[in-house]
């Protein structure tokens, strides 16, 4: 029985990881483009930036809703603990997402677009910052007893989560820039490419800082990283991440259009894999493990037959939607 629970919990850990990675990449570039609209000099260019998101932003955001629901079902204790502990960052993130969605829609109808333009860009930035703070707080550790939170509401307001937040903002902006290289042309594409260099460098610097810092604040990670055989299991991930970083720079220099996006996604996936392997078997460090947080086997199996089987189907029809709207965006706006 213990083994069955362990297996099911691990399967759901992987599935949630896949959903989270999909969310981070897809809404990451959406939030990134949102932040980059701050630097659009004209309304026309901003309209083109937003036009690249028109058909997909809602679907991208929905991966987070799915993540919330799947986490709630598969690991109810972790869902309760994380959201309770991260009350303020989560509420700020939700406010950001409310404003972003509203601004995106209302902007198109508005005659004086300035207010909604600013709201859209700031809301994207705030959402990214709040997600970064939440990630940093989880890595920093969320104290709990029997799954109930024992820390305070401001525990996230510490240097480490704030630095991680800066990294997430840079990472999302990088995703936004490489997505724009793929979906735009001309001066917007050129600017996105030069921005991508800077953002790649910044993201890389913060990622290195966080990687070096993590073992100091979270000793379990250090033990895991530097013990055999885990060392050899983890090693390919930073190597792959670094290789992808170099390939990204090369692709940017050579003026490729799709490759920068692909390599950036590889960097994100490698980082994610690194995080997941480092945390395992803990779901919410330092004390809540996967098995402690898991729902009953009946629920995990029921969810696996429903949500688990639907996951590939979701990917297919989401992919189809991308396929329908592929190609360069050259006209501003999304209501046509």
């Amino acid at each position: 029985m213990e083994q069955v629970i362990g297996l099911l919990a691990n399967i759901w850990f992987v599935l949630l990881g896949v959903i989270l990675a999909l969310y981070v990449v897809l809404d990451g570039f959406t939030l990134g483009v949102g932040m980059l609209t701050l630097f659009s000099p004209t309304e026309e260019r901003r309209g083109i930036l937003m036009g690249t998101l028109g058909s997909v932003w809602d679907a991208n955001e929905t991966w987070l809703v799915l993540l919330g629901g799947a986490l709630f079902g598969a690991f109810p204790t972790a869902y309760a603990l994380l959201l309770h502990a991260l009350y303020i960052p989560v509420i700020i993130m939700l406010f950001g997402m409310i404003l972003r969605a509203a601004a995106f829609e209302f902007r198109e109808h508005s005659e004086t677009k300035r207010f909604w333009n600013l709201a859209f860009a700031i809301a994207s930035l705030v959402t990214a910052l709040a997600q970064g703070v939440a990630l940093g707080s989880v890595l920093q550790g969320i104290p709990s007893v029997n799954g109930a939170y024992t820390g305070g509401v401001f525990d996230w307001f510490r240097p480490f989560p704030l630095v991680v937040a800066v990294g997430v903002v840079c990472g999302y902006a990088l995703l936004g820039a490489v997505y724009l290289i793929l979906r735009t042309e001309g001066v917007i594409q050129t600017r996105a490419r030069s921005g991508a260099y800077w953002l790649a460098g910044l993201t890389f610097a913060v990622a290195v800082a966080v990687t070096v810092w993590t073992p100091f604040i979270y000793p379990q990670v250090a033990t895991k990283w530097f013990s055999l055989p885990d060392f050899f299991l983890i090693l390919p991930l930073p190597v792959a991440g670094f290789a992808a970083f170099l390939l990204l720079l090369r692709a940017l220099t050579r003026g490729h259009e799709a490759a920068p996006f692909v390599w950036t996604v590889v960097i994100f996936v490698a980082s994610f894999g690194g995080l997941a392997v480092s945390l395992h078997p803990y779901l919410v460090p330092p004390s809540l493990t996967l098995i402690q947080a898991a729902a009953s086997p009946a629920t995990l199996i029921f969810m696996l037959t429903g949500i688990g089987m639907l996951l590939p189907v979701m990917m297919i029809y989401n992919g189809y939607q991308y396929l329908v709207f592929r190609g360069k965006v050259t006209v501003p706006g999304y209501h046509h």
Partner: protein
Amino acid sequence: MANTLILARSQFALTALFHILWPVLTIGLSLFLVVNEMLWIRRRDPDYYRHARFWSKLFILNFGVGVASGVPLEFEFGTNWAPFSAAMGDFFGNILGFEGAMAFMLEAGFLGIMLFGWKRVAPKIHLFASCMVALGASLSAFWIMVANSWMQTPAGGVMQRGRFAVTSYTQAMFNPAALWGVGHMWFACLETSLLVIGALSAWYIYKQRNLAFFLKSLKIAIAAAVLVAPLQIFLGDGSGRVVFQQQPAKGAAVEGHWRTNPPGTGASWALVAWPDKARQRNDWAISIPGVLSLLATHSFTGQVAGLKAFPPADQPPSLPLLFYAFRLMVAIGFYVLALMLWSLWLWYRGELTTDRVGRHRRWLIAWISALPLGYLAVESGWIVREVGRQPWIVNGLMRTAAGVSVLPPGTVLASFIGYALLYTLLLTAFLVFARRILRKGPDVTAEPPPLKPTAPLQVNAPVPHAFEED
């Protein structure tokens, strides 16, 4: 903690009551869009295409606010109701997961094609996308009502060490309140949307703008609402009887019914009253003998437990609110039925033609003023359902006070104020922009994308309207 509890409940009430405004229209309007698209493809009448394009402008504006206000609800159980989430997630969280995977994702995955894909995909693929959006929207109502009904009448599992563990998914999902609840809410969405579509169409007709065009949508609304309105009363009656069987304290609270009627006598039904929890009686009431027994049990002498049969700690709060919210909902249900009978009568008399419909000013005003009624009934219904469930968060299993997250009251107050401000902005902007869309009106000259002449759907088309109009 008392303050945190009140604030957390207020915040949930605010976010849920605000959010539900939008999906009710999304669910009904998405089906209406599918109907228009099918009529366009079958009858080849470009007006139905133009209807689809026109109403989808309102749809997307409404949908945007719905998404914006819906995402917080997915997380609010964890932020403000962590002990509830940890204890009940085994079923409740799982169902929210299904809602995300089967409903929201389906809706979002085809929304872009439905809204912006008219020129990018063939008409039939577009129709398929519209169907998937409508299906996703309706499935979201199914899953959330399953989850909510389970909080009303939990079944299919056992409490082990303070946590609910599912033993039978069939029993948990199809708990006593679920099927009536799903049906009642889904029909509420249809009825609200039909009132909105009909009211706006009536407004254009009243203003003599595109009269023939909007007579088409008004007729669709009437044809559907004539069926929906009576069925909704039937579903409401069924939901009510489940409440009296499964949640007798809630039933008694909603009706201001204090003393259990002795065997062989009927419980009287208070038409108006002022229930007073402190004094454990109605301050005053106008009652009709025997009617409550009839409503609750379909028999004149059926026994209906009175509130006094329950200790005050197990009685719902805010009794006058429950009492009048319920009566408002019921009154609206019957008013709408009357409006539909009136509409049917006019239609039967041949008055709903382009040259005659404009003369029925009073009837048009009745339709126009019915626009908010569905929303009012939905909000009232949710107040009855949720306030009536108190003091339980999961009826009989967990009290609301035991389910709330331990947080400083100031933190919850701050988030409550934030939500209130944001939602005020959203509602204001929505009304401004919706008004703009409506004043601008439809593009009645828009050319639809070509339908293939060999399309098999055309074979069964009864009258090729396109030729007539050419």
